[in-house]
């Protein structure tokens, strides 16, 4: 057990836990951030995607110890920002959301993409979403959602 501090959605948090505990479990169980989903537990599906120091990562693959001192952003941390609202609205208008289990992770991947490229073309969007699996949509309408977010949010990113 060790006390580990990191920034979670802008606030410093301190967790007393095994440094090898998965960041995913810390976020869901200790911090009640249930917008972070567990889909596979092995870094394949992206349902647990969060931003670590601005980089998109799968929180099931990050031991808590590796998060020490870093800045972690979960869906809870962006959904009420202008960027988060823009992505959510765009996903809603595009029909990008079906069962919804992958969608918070897709929002994180979209945020990560638009931060480095605010005018992505279709193949850049598909590349950026390729670490996030979806079984419902076939991806077409998620791609459209990202396109809409990029058009509407051109001043945000």
């Amino acid at each position, binding site marked *: 057990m060790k006390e580990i501090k990191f920034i979670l959605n802008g606030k410093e948090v301190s967790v007393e836990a095994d440094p090898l505990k998965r960041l995913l479990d810390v976020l*869901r169980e200790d911090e009640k951030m*249930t*917008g*972070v*989903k*567990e*889909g*596979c*537990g*092995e870094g*394949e*599906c992206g*349902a647990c995607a969060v931003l670590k120091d601005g980089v998109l990562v799968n929180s099931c693959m990050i031991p808590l110890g590796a998060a020490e001192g870093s800045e972690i952003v*979960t*869906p*809870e941390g962006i*959904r*009420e920002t202008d960027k*988060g609202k823009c*992505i*959510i*609205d765009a*996903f*809603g*208008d*595009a*029909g*990008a*959301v*079906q*069962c*919804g*289990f*992958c*969608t*918070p992770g*897709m*929002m994180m991947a979209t945020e990560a993409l638009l931060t480095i490229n605010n005018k992505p073309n*279709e193949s850049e*969007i*598909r*590349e950026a*979403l*390729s*670490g*996030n*699996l*979806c*079984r*419902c*949509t*076939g*991806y*077409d*309408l*998620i*791609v459209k959602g990202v396109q809409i977010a990029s058009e509407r949010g051109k001043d945000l990113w």
Partner: protein
Amino acid sequence: MGAKISIPVRRIDAKEKAGGWTKYIGDYQFKNLQHGRFLRSERARAKIIEIKKPDFPEGYYYIDASDIPSSGKNNIQMIKDDWRVFAVSDVKYIGETIAVILGPDKQKVLDLLNQIEVIYEDLVPAFTFDDALSCKGGAVYGDNNIFSEYLLNVGNVDNAFKDAVKIVEGKYETGFQEHLYMETQGLVGAWEDEKITIYASSQCPFYIRKSVAVTLGVPVGDIRVRQTTTGGAFGGKEHFPDVIATPLAVAVNKVKKPVAMIYDRIEDISFTSKRHPSKITIKTGLDKNNNIIAMDIDTLVNGGAYESSTTIVLQRAILHGIGVYNIPNARIRGRAVATNTFPSDAYRGFGAPQGLFAIEMHMSHVADELGLDSSDFRRKHFIKTNDITITNAKMHDEVKLPEMFAKIDEMSDYSSRVKKYTDDPVKGIGIAFVNHGGGFTGNGEQAIIKGVVKMKRLEGGKAGLYVSVVEMGQGLQTTMRKIAAKELGLDYEDIVYDNPDTDIVPDSGPTCASRSIMVVGFLVQECAKKLKAKWNEGVGVEAEDVYKHPDELIWEQETLQGDAYPSYGWGINVVEVEFDPVTYEVKTTGIWAVWDIGVAIDEIIMQGQSSGGVIQALGYASIEKCELKNGAFMQHTMADYTIPTSLDFPKVETCFIDNPYKYGPSGAKGAGELVFDAAPPAYAEAVQNAIGKRIYDIPVTPEMIMGALK
């Protein structure tokens, strides 16, 4: 697409889901929650000699069949009740539930599980169709391993074959497919108000209620089931949650505390039902004008160790066995066999994709054998309105396939590309034509389900909608609201429709069989009309509607004769591919889809169904390989069972043709499964045209292509 109701609205659940506010089963907090894990069989077929258990600390339990109350049964009451809640004295497949281990600490539960040793005496298992038919190791089921057998016949097949100038035969096989819903299986059983409440990620809350009540031997009213927002299902949460809920309920009944049974991904892939594998042999006789005069089909599906819904899956496979064609003399023998594999169960399409893959590939092969264009040959044999079907009834639907072909040809440039690629060494294009019967087979909606829906006027100009069909990603929370709102003249957001709770909603039947919109949606429409007529009686006024089978549709269940389905959705897919002659990998370069689903209740939601169904089906056709080794699935993770990513396939270009159905809400028919049916044969035909060798089996892997070319 001209209907007003098709104009898209924003899905009611989109924002909450996208932002991560929506709670799924794993997101709820329960006080004093216990964690359960299953002790499962590690052998495919064996006697249990002894189970060696460690001492259980206080608060930790080992629950097995001996904990079922004397009034109950060690059977899971699904369509059949042969599947046992707990294995006793022997095991029939790898993964069969033997016991539930539970306690307050998850890790401690796992430690206890690992210390349990089951001593088996192995028996000879049967895994393949040949094993099953030869009763290897003795019959797993009955005295011949045949769960069910049917013979469909139209015309006089034997006489017609005598007149044939040419005969073509082919054998077609399809494999297991894992649903891979993004949210794994998960249920929590709780003891609330002196009764068992099951919180479930599921398609069919009333199925769970019935099976749990039978297992515990209590009236159904003593069990409450509350659906939690379901993160994908595709048939995998139709019956399978009953397999979890029944042992879970036995445990809760004993410990009187909430118990969570939430699968991790490895458990979910390793130990849940898959799509039925199939092996279908087709023989076709032709006259001198290249018309099909006779067809003889033999269909086998592997049901695994227990029957569950296998017989109904077999029915659907054979009822779709001659596809969209008018074959004057046709015979289909269908058999569902028992083996020692994990019991197969419902998966989007429910047997139809297997039957349709075989017939579409066969039609392509017959055309090839005759030197004819595959699409021309198939189009010449299209069934038309009032033609006789395989069940000796008239096709009632207005069949718009010719119009739909014209549309997809225009969209995809199919006719010119198929010629252009004839001699191309790497490119190919394929087409497939399908239909899919909506709702339960025959008169099942009347005989088995008898769906009921209820509505009520609420405060503030709102209306409550009470149905048991669930949102699982397909959009029901939105489309059902639209159907009700249209009749009541309200905004769709003014309809209240919560996740079903069996203590509150009537039983409108399960969420399956492409029935929710067509059958339950129609009841909602009619119920809303009744509520509208009574609206001015004030807040609290209620209306109800009950399913009534259309008088003109007749059905004989024992012999499967008559009108097999109330109506059909129809579809055509075109797929274009390019293969790499060095690596044998296939790249899909174009996908087109035209559908007749009556009327789309929401154009964007239906586009989502089209893209999602087609891509899931292309996974089935290409990369989703699920193999057995000594009765265990070899694939356990998302790394070795791969599904399509956003990079694997291009956009699906979709078009809908209006063809209103009189017993569907605003004319809508079933759609959720239809969109899966056409892509596998279209893809396989595209690959065979690219590589110049016939394809008989899916998934079409690079290894298979390499084998075909060597």
